[in-house]
Structure formats: structure tokens, C-alpha cells
């Protein structure tokens, strides 16, 4: 069964589909991926994870090989099998059509013949998933000899093993995927080993032997033309290069940029590795005995299987003891000691099959395939082990064997690993999955396979307010092209019901936040066992965290960024919450850099983005508000008079200078070009001539301040024309004018626009004592100048009633539509400004990434983090001790895995014998007056309240003036809140959350105390 042979041709990469992956991998890498044919041997849960990820990633072809018939146990993790196929259909054939549907660009074949040498030679990469060791050794030997990249991967319950052999002299073109570090130079010495010092804001991330190049160095400009130079690091801000004694002295400027170097690695065949124990990749630095024991253990279970014709039986002590004896004989060093507990766990679960481990090992394997075919990122070298033993039942060895025997259920793979009792608990969980995007899709697939929510009391709630877009399909694997524009949550729910018809799942499209607390209310949260975030923004994460803290629910959190992923588990009363620790704030771009002194393409892109917003959205919104909102003009009076003046002036220009045809839009665009890229630059250079010095005597235009050059419009210049075309089209859209599509017509029209000459504005220098004080503005002197001008403009504006029904079409930035001129405008505008300041331009792809704040995303990382989250979920439902949980940070590219115990919830002490954590709070039932509230805390808790607030509203403060205080003391808290916040009490809630500042009554000490849940009815 195979599709007709495709015509061999270089495929064009679908940028819209692979958008987020391209930001992680690059176009060059993608080309190599689309040329790669992969064979996957073994199509149980592990194999299908690999196949799913590779198909979505867009390899050239995937060939499926597994002739064994589907077993009921396979359905524990093989999401493309169905019960009717059990015992009737070969595994590869059984999932073929579902795999084909994943990605039209990828050819899928099934091979039902032999794994002959001739057949294997067709492939660039061969992957063996859960195959006998004898087959692994045989195929690897052949692949190694024939330059076929080989990967072998296994999962055994909570254990996993992965082996890479990419042959001898494998070239890594880019070891980490990071942009090369670039630094601004502050000085370079003339020495036998010239010392380069960079400006203080940045710390060098260079090592001895790294290569660097120079550009824009003044004085010692010969450096700009040298080939890459090898460096020696000296201090965080200095390094040395070669001999600079004979070069002219450094004067100013310049950048030094790291040169990324390819790396060549040798891989050894599997037989060598197993015999020598070399090239073991450490995945968890804290598990010292794991590699040694699993190296022996995995081989031992294979030897056991060869001898006994079956894998060790579930939870069988006799078989486990036999495996232990075999393993003892396989230890490499005399002083190695076998961890019999670990080997027992491995043996007990050797037939186990749990979807979290398939997702983890499958995702990592798929990433290794992509590395093999492209040389992008550093491969695992060569043999790696993974385990999640902490999620096994604590009393594993004392539980009866019967607990782990398969029952002919689709969950048998999980029952073998965790036992029937835990399986039943999983099926009856109630979970809230927040988000049905990439992580959400992976979570739902995992839930479906685990049976989470499939029991009579079980339920999964899933919400996502978004609809499906093409760029989602690359990772959000529950969706198909035909689903585009459908709701994610409903579509995902329908898809996983196909995977497991027993799953109880309810889909919503309401976003989570204060606005929807009538829906996601107290009853809703109290029905939950936990919450699983699958979000892509911090704001929603923080909100869900606060709700989980309030309602005392466990929270599972995860995120990805390209090859990086992280997970965090939050357990009530045990751990700190998500918001307890925070990432450092993102550095914004200072407003004066943005306005006058850009030095990086990020600055010009941000400026272009802001310009887009101002010209095509804010102006339209202001006009529309003026015309439709009777209170608008009045509301402007509360603003700064200068803001009001600017706003009214823009409304006037928008209404009274509106274009009547497209030619007027072209003229407008041409004049904007002149204003932005010539006039404003000439003005800046008039104020700060190129030779100006600062107050400290150094050149004004130096370091981060790049001297700009005005641009003269050239209708033959493609970049200039791009700006005109995009700006004119957007203006036409604003005013509902039909646009011209013929570029030559636009070009001719732009060339004919009459542009006024520009004269720089001067600050008038006072020449005599009697002249009035000068002003940089043209306003007349007097405090009410702005008000007068506002009144003048208002009198000139048409009355809203005269223009009833008229509106300007506001343009909302849409980054993923390539036909709407939004990215065209921003790219052209950014690059023109970059040209002004001699900054290297960015292509449309890069501009879109920055302007649209696109987060690079890969299906592989997504699958792996979802797997790790589900491992933590299994711990949460067993109420594991703190040290059993793991928060994860990983980078599949480097590769790196870090597992850390969550931080315990910090304890705060009020006084001896009274401590509390973020999970605790005071409860006050019944609406009482402020005075009664204060008295209650003094008498009952010994606390003097000095300040009381609810959300952002301050209800009481000791320092409030006496009269106000007396009035407030008499009021009920609920009334006080409504009065001061000017908001009604929430109808669907019965409480307010109050914050207190207080002192201990006895000692007078400031003390930190929990929030107050105040129930007012």
C-alpha cells in the first residue's frame, strides 16, 4: 500500500504552514529536512509519536514498518489505533491513513516486505522503536557501514533509552541555534596581543579559541577586513586578539561578532558502546547510578527475552530476580554495584506502556532525526537513559502481583506500570485544561490515552477562545486544513473523542480571566481535581495561578520556545506557586532610542510597528470616537492639554484632508516618506551636527548613537517603492478606496508628486533683554495657549451630526496575512529607517518575527513538555512528597535536561506557634462594618490593621484624615468597596479578597499576614 511515486523535484517550503518552526530552525535547515527520507520500525505508541512529529515537521517521506497485528495493550499510547483493529490489522497498515492526513507535503509508505539491505539503503535515517536488541545491532551495523543515520529508542514503563549513531565525521553546522553574540566596542589597544574592550552593558559570552570578526571600526579600520580572529578571554569585558602594534590607533565605533563554527563528531556502532560503556550521555546529574544500571538493565531484559521468548512478566518477582542475575554479569567495572531496586522496577514494568514516556522519548527521538538530516543542533552522543521512577506507587514492591495484571483493557499498558487502583483513580479525575493550542493538543492526546476523565465520574474541561489558523497545523496535530477557522477547543475535543470514545470532555471558548468568573465560578473550581495550563502568555498563566491558589487546586504549568521547554508543578500547601518567582523583566527599548537614536534592527522594527499603529489605527479610532461618542470631546478635557491638542489636530487632518481617490493616497504616502526619512533626519542633524561633541568632550555621534543620513526619494529604488505601495494601500483601506494593483502606475504617480522643500526649525536665540521668551513650539505665550488652539480646531471640525454614518476603517495589525500589506509596510518602513542609520536591513520573515512577537515553536519540544507534565500529574494524584516532584528545564538543541525539586512554599511567621504560607487565608463570614472588622482582628488575632485594600482600591488607612475615616468606619465593608471602587459587587461571587497591612498588638512589630476571604452574604 503506497502512493504513486512523486515527481522528484525540490519542494517549495510552505512558509505559512511551517511559520513557527522556521523561526526555530531556519529556512536552510528546513530545506534539508524536506529532502530526508525516514524509516520507522515499530508502530506502537513510541513509533507513532516519532512518526507524528516527523510528519508535522515536514520531512520528505516516512516509511512505516511493523507487520505485527494490533494488540489491545497498544491502545494505551497508540492514538491512531482503534479497538476494531485488534487482532485483525498489521500495526503499520492500521495507522497509515491517519498518518497520511497529518501533512499533505509528506509522503507516507508502508513496507510489508523484509528489512533487506537493498531496502534500507533507500533511507537517510533509520529509526528502530522498541525492537529486539539483536535487530538493533544488525541494522545498526549495516547503517554505520553505509552512512545511514541510525537511531534506536526504547521505552519500558517509566524507563527509556535512546541511541544515536550518525556515523564517522558527522558535521554539526550549528551547535546551539542561538544568534551569534555581537558586542559594541569601546576601545582597542595597540599591542602584540591587542586588547578589545566592549561597552559596559554587555558581558562577553566568549571562550578562548572562539573566532570573531569586526565591522565599522574607525581608526584601526584594517580590522574590518581581516578574516575571523581567534581570541583569548581576559575579563568579562575584555579579550585579546593578534598583533595590533602596527595598525593605526583605534578612534571610535565598531562591533565585534562571534563566528559560529561547525563541529565534527564521530559516532561508534552500538556493539562498541554496549561493550565499552563509553559515550553515555548524562540526562540527570542527580541520578548517579542510573546510567550504569540501565546500561546493564536494558541489555539484561533483552537477554531474558531471548531466553524465555517473552519480556519479564508484569510485577513478577521470579522474572525480576532472573534479570538481576543477568545484569550483574553485565556491569562494566569491578566496583560497580547493581541497584537491585532499579532493576526490579525496570523488570516489573518491562511490558508497561505509558503515553507520557512515549511522548518524551518520541519527541526527543524526532528532534534527533532532524539533527541527523540537517546538522542543526548538537546530537545526543550517543546513548542516553531516562526514568520517571518517582511516579511509581510508593509501595510498589509490596503490592500484590495481581494489581498489575492486564485485564484485556485498552489501558493495560498503564495498569502494568501503575496498577489497577491508580488506573481507576486516573479515569475518574476532573481536570481543567486551559488552552487547546499546541501544548493543549498534546495534553488531550495524552489524557485520551491515559483514560483521564473516561470513568463515570471523570471529566475534562477544555477552553480556548482562538480559532484555528494555518500556521497552527504544524504543531497542533488534532487539527486539519478543513478545520481552519473552527474553534480550537471544540475541534480538539471532537478529535480526542475519536481517539478514545469513552473520554468525557466538555469544550468552551470562553477565555479565562476576571470577566468570565461567572462561568468559571466557585462551583466549577470546587468540582476540579486540578488545573493544567496549556497557555502561551504570562498574563493568563498568572491569573490561573491566582485562581488555583485561591481554590487550593494543583496546577500543572508548561511552556516552550523553540527547542527550549519548561514545566512546573504547583501542589497546594506543599510548593510555592507559579507567581512566587518571576523571570527578570524583559528589557524595553528606551523611548529616546526609539525616537532618535536607533542602533539595531529591533529598534527600527518597533518604531515601524508603532508608526503603523499610529497612522492606520489610532487616527481612525480617534475619528470614529469623535463621530459616535457624544462624551468623547468632554473626556478629552481630562487629559493633558498637549495630548488633547495633538488628538484634535489628528482628527482634523483625518476628516478634512481625507483622500477621494487612490492617487491622493499615493501622494500622501510620498509626503510621509519625505517627512519620516528625509525631513525628520535633516532636522535631527541640524540640532546635532555630525561633528558635535558631548558635554564630556567625546563625539556626540558615537557608541550607540549612529549618525543618520537623510534619504532622497528614488522612484526606481525597490525599497522606496515598497513603502509607497504599502502605505498607499493601507490609507486606501482606511478610507474605503479601491486600490490600484499595477505597480508601474503607482510608480509613475509617485514620481509626479510635488514635495515642498524642507527647512529645519530653529530655536530662536534671544538677542536682547526685551524680546519675549522663546519657545520650541509655535504657540503664543500664555498658559491657555493650548486650550485656545483646541477650541479653534473644534470650531473648524464638522459636527458629528453632519457626518452621521461616516467612519474610517481602523486597521488591526494582523501578522499572519501576507496579502494585507501590514508586514509589507512595517518591513519597508523599518528598512528605510535602518538605511537612514546604516543598520543592516531585515527580510520580511525576520521583521514579522519581531514585529509580531512570534514565539518559535516545534512539535518536538511541545510533545516532550506535555509528556513531562503528565508524569507530574501522576505524582499529584498520589499525593507524593515534595522531593518526588520535578520541575523541568530542557533544551533539545544543545541538548540539556535539568530536573529540580519544586521550591517548598515559604513559611511566614506571625508569632511563635503561628506560621502561614501562600495557601492559607483568614475567613470572615457575614458583612460587618469596617470598625467591627478592625475590632475582630484586634481581639481575635491580636493584630492592629493599619491598611486594608481590595484589589487596587484602598478601603482603610491609618493615615486617612479623621473625618473620612470616621465615615468609613460606620460603613459595611461591601458598601465601602462599592462606593470607593465605583464598581458593583460581583453578582456571581459571594466574597471579596482583602489584603491587610498590620502590626502585632503586643509587640507593635510589622507582620506579614495572609489574605482575607470576606464573605458578605
Amino acid at each position, binding site marked *: 500500500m503506497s502512493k504513486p511515486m512523486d515527481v522528484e523535484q525540490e519542494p517549495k517550503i510552505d512558509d505559512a504552514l511551517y511559520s513557527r518552526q522556521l523561526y526555530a530552525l531556519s529556512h536552510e535547515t528546513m530545506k534539508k529536512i524536506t529532502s530526508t527520507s525516514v524509516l520507522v520500525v515499530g508502530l506502537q505508541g513510541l513509533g507513532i509519536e516519532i512518526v507524528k512529529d516527523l510528519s508535522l515537521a515536514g520531512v520528505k517521506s516516512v516509511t512505516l514498518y511493523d507487520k505485527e497485528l494490533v494488540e489491545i495493550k497498544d491502545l494505551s499510547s497508540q492514538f491512531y489505533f482503534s479497538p476494531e483493529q485488534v487482532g485483525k490489522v498489521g500495526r503499520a497498515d492500521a495507522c497509515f491513513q491517519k498518518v497520511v492526513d497529518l501533512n499533505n507535503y509528506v509522503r507516507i509508505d508502508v513496507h510489508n516486505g523484509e528489512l533487506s539491505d537493498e531496502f534500507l539503503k533507500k533511507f537517510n535515517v533509520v529509526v528502530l522503536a522498541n525492537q529486539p536488541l539483536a535487530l538493533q545491532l544488525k541494522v545498526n551495523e549495516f547503517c554505520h557501514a553505509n552512512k545511514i543515520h541510525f537511531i534506536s529508542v526504547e521505552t519500558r514503563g517509566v524507563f527509556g533509552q535512546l541511541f544515536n549513531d550518525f556515523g564517522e565525521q558527522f558535521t554539526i553546522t550549528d551547535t546551539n541555534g542561538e544568534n551569534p553574540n555581537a558586542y559594541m566596542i569601546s576601545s582597542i589597544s595597540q599591542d602584540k596581543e591587542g586588547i578589545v574592550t566592549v561597552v559596559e552593558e554587555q558581558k562577553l559570552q566568549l571562550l578562548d579559541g572562539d573566532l570573531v570578526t569586526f565591522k565599522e571600526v574607525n581608526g584601526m579600520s584594517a580590522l574590518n577586513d581581516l578574516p575571523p580572529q581567534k581570541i583569548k578571554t581576559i575579563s568579562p569585558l575584555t579579550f585579546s586578539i593578534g598583533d595590533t602594534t602596527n595598525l593605526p590607533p583605534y578612534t571610535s565605533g565598531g562591533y565585534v561578532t562571534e563566528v559560529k563554527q561547525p563541529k565534527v563528531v564521530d559516532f561508534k556502532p552500538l556493539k562498541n558502546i554496549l561493550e565499552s560503556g563509553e559515550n553515555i550521555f548524562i540526562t540527570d546529574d542527580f541520578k548517579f547510578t542510573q546510567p550504569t544500571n540501565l546500561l546493564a538493565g536494558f541489555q539484561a531484559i533483552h537477554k531474558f527475552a531471548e531466553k524465555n521468548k517473552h519480556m519479564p512478566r508484569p510485577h513478577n518477582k521470579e522474572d525480576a530476580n532472573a534479570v538481576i542475575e543477568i545484569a550483574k554479569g553485565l556491569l562494566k567495572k569491578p566496583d560497580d554495584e547493581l541497584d537491585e531496586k532499579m532493576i526490579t522496577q525496570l523488570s516489573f514494568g518491562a511490558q508497561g506502556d505509558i503515553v507520557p514516556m512515549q511522548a518524551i522519548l518520541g519527541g526527543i527521538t524526532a528532534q534527533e532525526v532532524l539533527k541527523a538530516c540537517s546538522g542543526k543542533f548538537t546530537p545526543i552522543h550517543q546513548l542516553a537513559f531516562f526514568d520517571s521512577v518517582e511516579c511509581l506507587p510508593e509501595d510498589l514492591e509490596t503490592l500484590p502481583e495481581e494489581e498489575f495484571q492486564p485485564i484485556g483493557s485498552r489501558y493495560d499498558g498503564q495498569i502494568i506500570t501503575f496498577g489497577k487502583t491508580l488506573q481507576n483513580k486516573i479515569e475518574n479525575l476532573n481536570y481543567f485544561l486551559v488552552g487547546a493550542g499546541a501544548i493543549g493538543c498534546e495534553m488531550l492526546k495524552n489524557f485520551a490515552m491515559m483514560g483521564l476523565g473516561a470513568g463515570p465520574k471523570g471529566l475534562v474541561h477544555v477552553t480556548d477562545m482562538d480559532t484555528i489558523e494555518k500556521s497552527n497545523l504544524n504543531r497542533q496535530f488534532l487539527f486539519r486544513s478543513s478545520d481552519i477557522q473552527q474553534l480550537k477547543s471544540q475541534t480538539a475535543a471532537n478529535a480526542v473523542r475519536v481517539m478514545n470514545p469513552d473520554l468525557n470532555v466538555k469544550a468552551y471558548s470562553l477565555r479565562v480571566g476576571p470577566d468570565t468568573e461567572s462561568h468559571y465560578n466557585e462551583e466549577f473550581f470546587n468540582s476540579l481535581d486540578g488545573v493544567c495550563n496549556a497557555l502561551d502568555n504570562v498574563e493568563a498563566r498568572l491569573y490561573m495561578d491566582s485562581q488555583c491558589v485561591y481554590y487550593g487546586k494543583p496546577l500543572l504549568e508548561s511552556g516552550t520556545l523553540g527547542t527550549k521547554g519548561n514545566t512546573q508543578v504547583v501542589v497546594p500547601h506543599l510548593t510555592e506557586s507559579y507567581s512566587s518567582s518571576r523571570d527578570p523583566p524583559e528589557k524595553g527599548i528606551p523611548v529616546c532610542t526609539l525616537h532618535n537614536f536607533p542602533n539595531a534592527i529591533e529598534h527600527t522594527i518597533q518604531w515601524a510597528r508603532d508608526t503603523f499603529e499610529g497612522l492606520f489605527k489610532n487616527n481612525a479610532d480617534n475619528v470614529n470616537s469623535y463621530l459616535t461618542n457624544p462624551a468623547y470631546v468632554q473626556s478629552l478635557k481630562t487629559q493633558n492639554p498637549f495630548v488633547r491638542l495633538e488628538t484634535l489636530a489628528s482628527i482634523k487632518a483625518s476628516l478634512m484632508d481625507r483622500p477621494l481617490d487612490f492617487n491622493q493616497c499615493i501622494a500622501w504616502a510620498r509626503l510621509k516618506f519625505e517627512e519620516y526619512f528625509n525631513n525628520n533626519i535633516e532636522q535631527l542633524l541640524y540640532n546635532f551636527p555630525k561633528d558635535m561633541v558631548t558635554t564630556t568632550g567625546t563625539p556626540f555621534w558615537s557608541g550607540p548613537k549612529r549618525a543618520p543620513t537623510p534619504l532622497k526619494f528614488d522612484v526606481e529604488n525597490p525599497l522606496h517603492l515598497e513603502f509607497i505601495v504599502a502605505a498607499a494601500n493601507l490609507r486606501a483601506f482606511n478610507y474605503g478606496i479601491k486600490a490600484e494593483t499595477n505597480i508601474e502606475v503607482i510608480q509613475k504617480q509617485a514620481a509626479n508628486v510635488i514635495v515642498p522643500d524642507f527647512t529645519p526649525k530653529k530655536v530662536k536665540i534671544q538677542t536682547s533683554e526685551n524680546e519675549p521668551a522663546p519657545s520650541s513650539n509655535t504657540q503664543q505665550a500664555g498658559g491657555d495657549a493650548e486650550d485656545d488652539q483646541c477650541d479653534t480646531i473644534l470650531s473648524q471640525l464638522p459636527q458629528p451630526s453632519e457626518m452621521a454614518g461616516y467612519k474610517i476603517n481602523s486597521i488591526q495589525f494582523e501578522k499572519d496575512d501576507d496579502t494585507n500589506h501590514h508586514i509589507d509596510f512595517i518591513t519597508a518602513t523599518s528598512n528605510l529607517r535602518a538605511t537612514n542609520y546604516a543598520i543592516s536591513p531585515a527580510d520580511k520573515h525576520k521583521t514579522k518575527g519581531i514585529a509580531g512577537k512570534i514565539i518559535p515553536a516545534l512539535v518536538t519540544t511541545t510533545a516532550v513538555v506535555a509528556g513531562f507534565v503528565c508524569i507530574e500529574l501522576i505524582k499529584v494524584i498520589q499525593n507524593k512528597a515534595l522531593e518526588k516532584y520535578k520541575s523541568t528545564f530542557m533544551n533539545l538543541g544543545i541538548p540539556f535536561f535539568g530536573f529540580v525539586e519544586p521550591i517548598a512554599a515559604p513559611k511566614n511567621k506571625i508569632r511563635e506557634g503561628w506560621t502561614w504560607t501562600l495557601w492559607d487565608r483568614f475567613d470572615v463570614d457575614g458583612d460587618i462594618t469596617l470598625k467591627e472588622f478592625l475590632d475582630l482582628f484586634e481581639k481575635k488575632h491580636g493584630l492592629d490593621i493599619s*491598611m486594608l485594600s481590595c484589589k487596587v482600591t484602598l478601603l482603610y488607612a491609618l493615615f486617612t484624615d479623621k473625618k473620612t475615616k470616621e465615615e468609613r468606619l460606620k460603613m459595611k465593608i461591601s458598601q465601602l468597596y462599592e462606593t470607593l471602587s465605583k464598581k458593583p459587587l460581583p453578582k456571581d461571587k459571594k466574597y471579596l479578597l482583602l489584603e491587610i497591612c498590620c502590626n502585632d498588638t503586643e509587640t507593635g512589630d510589622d507582620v506579614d499576614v495572609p489574605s482575607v476571604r470576606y464573605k458578605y452574604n
Partner: protein
Amino acid sequence: MAAHKRLQKEITDMLKTPPSWCSAHLVDDNLQKWKATVQGPEGSPFEKGVFSMDIDIPADYPFKPPTLKFTTKIYHPNIKTSDGAICAEVFSTWSPQLKILDVLTTIRSILTDPNPDNPLETEIAQQFKTDRNAFNKTAKEWTKKYAK
């Protein structure tokens, strides 16, 4: 919740022991909206002036810096005349350890020492560099007119 608690403490400290050169209070009892006044530093052209500003504190303060805008018109190279926006290093090198009072201290220091090398008002900056007396005269005039 942490932000509100910290803001409670900050406004308490401001009201208990205000510096001699500034004051602050909440707008409509809203912890995230402060109004502050800063006295022009002695020896500067802004002396004897009382400058008002709006302080908007984001929900994720202190992880994000507050936004400050002068509501009193001021002739200064680092303060945008049209809307009172301020360009000061404290915002781009923000740290969660800083407080509102630290920001106000920084604002006061740029009144004492304008930084014409990082201007928002380029023409005022040029005048500051090339004709300090004229700058001082205009700044004093504006202070007298707008900042009483």
C-alpha cells in the same frame, strides 16, 4: 496579590515620612494610580516650581516599572513637551528592588542635571548645549508660568 501589598507599604512610607521635596497621594483610593509633586531643585532653573506628575503602576509591578508623566508643562530636554513623557535611564535599567520613591529621586536628579545627550526634545537639547543662558531663561519663565 503581592503587588498590592507592596504598594500598600510604599504609600504608607511616603505618607508617614515624606521627603521634604516631594509628596504623593492616591487618585480615587486606587493603589495603582498615584499623583506626585516634586519641587524644582534649588540652584536649577526649576527652583521654586512645583511639578505635578501622574504615576501609573502596572499590575505586574514591581516586575515592570511604573509609568510617569509630567502634567505640569516643563522646558526640559529629557521630558517631552507635548505629553510629559520622560526619558530616563531608571526605566530601561529597571529592577524589582527599586521603589516609586527611587524613581522620583531620579526624576529630581534629571531636573538638576539634564542629559542633553539622550534627548526627547532635540531642539531644547541643542539649546541647552549651545546657549545655556537662553535655556535657563526659558526654563525659569516656564517654571514661573506653569509650575506655581
